[in-house]
């Protein structure tokens, strides 16, 4: 069971959260100019690292707000938790 630190509610069990995959994947700035390959990249291709990963979570059973977490995908250690719209902290 992960203990995930919500920036607003503090650490809670993973069963209170839902997962949003890789963080910091921006919607294309000018969608009308994006070709098929880049659309595929935006829709389907995500990093899948064995190591540190910045990812989105939503505190479904709590404040219902989205936020980002930096988590290690082997040890599952969490090194940072930060609000959306802020950049990834320089940890790990």
């Amino acid at each position, binding site marked *: 069971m*992960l203990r995930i630190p919500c920036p607003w509610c503090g650490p809670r069990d*993973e069963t209170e959260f839902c997962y949003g995959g890789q963080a910091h994947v921006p919607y294309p700035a000018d969608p009308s100019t994006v070709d098929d390959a880049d659309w*595929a*990249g935006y829709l*389907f*291709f995500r990093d899948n690292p*064995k190591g540190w990963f910045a990812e989105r979570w939503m505190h479904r059973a709590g404040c219902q707000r989205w936020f980002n977490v930096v988590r290690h995908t082997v*040890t599952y250690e969490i090194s940072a938790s930060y609000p959306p719209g802020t950049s990834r902290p320089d940890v790990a």
Partner: protein
Amino acid sequence: MTWQLTPRLPAQPDFLWAEAEPKASYDVIIVGAGGHGLATAYYLAKNHGITNVAVLERGWLAGGNMARNTTIIRSNYLWDESAGIYEHALKLWEGLEADLDCEVAFSQRGVLNLAHSLGDVREGRRRVNANQLNGVDAEWLTPEDVQKIAPILNISTDVRYPVLGATFQPRAGIAKHDWVAWGYARAAHAMGVDLIQGCEVTGVLREGDRVVGVDTVSGPIRAGRVALAAAGHSSVITASLGLRLPLQSFPLQALVSELLEQVLDTVVMSNAVHVYVSQAHKGELVMGAGIDGYVGYGQRGSFPVIEHQMAAAIELFPIFARAHVLRTWGGIVDVSPDASPIVGLTPFEGLYVNCGWGTGGFKATPGIGWVFADTIANDRPHPLAQPFALARFADGALIDEHGAAAVAH
């Protein structure tokens, strides 16, 4: 009447292949000595006469997902493309013991896919129709028919997950995963394939856009062609080339009970509640659970997943309440966006991928071995692999099998 608690099992075999030291170069290197990698090596040698082949394995042979799955074999997928590859595999399973001259305990005991809601019923009936049109054996069963096949199943209506019917594929079944791997390994080795364990691939060697070998913990090994069969670690290997794959890796859990008398002689799956169960030849209940909800490479799973699965399983099978969980484990599965595999050529000449099988690669073992070997040998996609090309994510021809696959492949 004489009761036999456990059916007769063959004695444990002696060593079936010899350890090999890596040579400086090969015609083909296969990364990953799981079922897919070993089957690919076997069919490269048998069907195409390509025997200067090494299968490199970072751990031990068949110790990854091949040792961690629930051994369910079926071909009742929705779309034509999937029926093509999975039914090809099932036909090969039906002749595999004779082909490999090796017992693999392939048991065609049928598989039930339960429906718990009106949506499940409609989808199940649609899939039965699609299967029949593709020549795949399938029928729709009422709850009463379901209980005739699996009498221990609870078909009461006043439960959280009532059984409203099921699809049934009589030719589906299970096999003994270790023997499948060992059978392929022995046969491939006998034709000259090198099986090299403890040899982790750390990178891919390239000259321009051509792949010319791999870097390993034992040093570089050159190869004319490199074929990846590395399941949940595929992304890690291609990352060294800057090649992104549309995969996310998740732990998938399964568990076994202690040995029990035979109470279930078919396979029962429930996609909606992520329970799938069969009873192995020795008598243990083998049950699969869902994947974790977040990316992970830890070969263990999250406890709430197992807890949810057990709650549903005990409602479906009340007599399981007195069984004990003996062992749980996790394997790392590579899930693609459309729940279908990714097989074929890559933007790099001489590099072939076979990944994205998610939670359901075991059943495809002979079929994908055959098709992947053909793809590698001829440097073009086998017709059954063609629809599963990496390019489908850009051209939009997805093969959406979330209904037939979900997590309960």
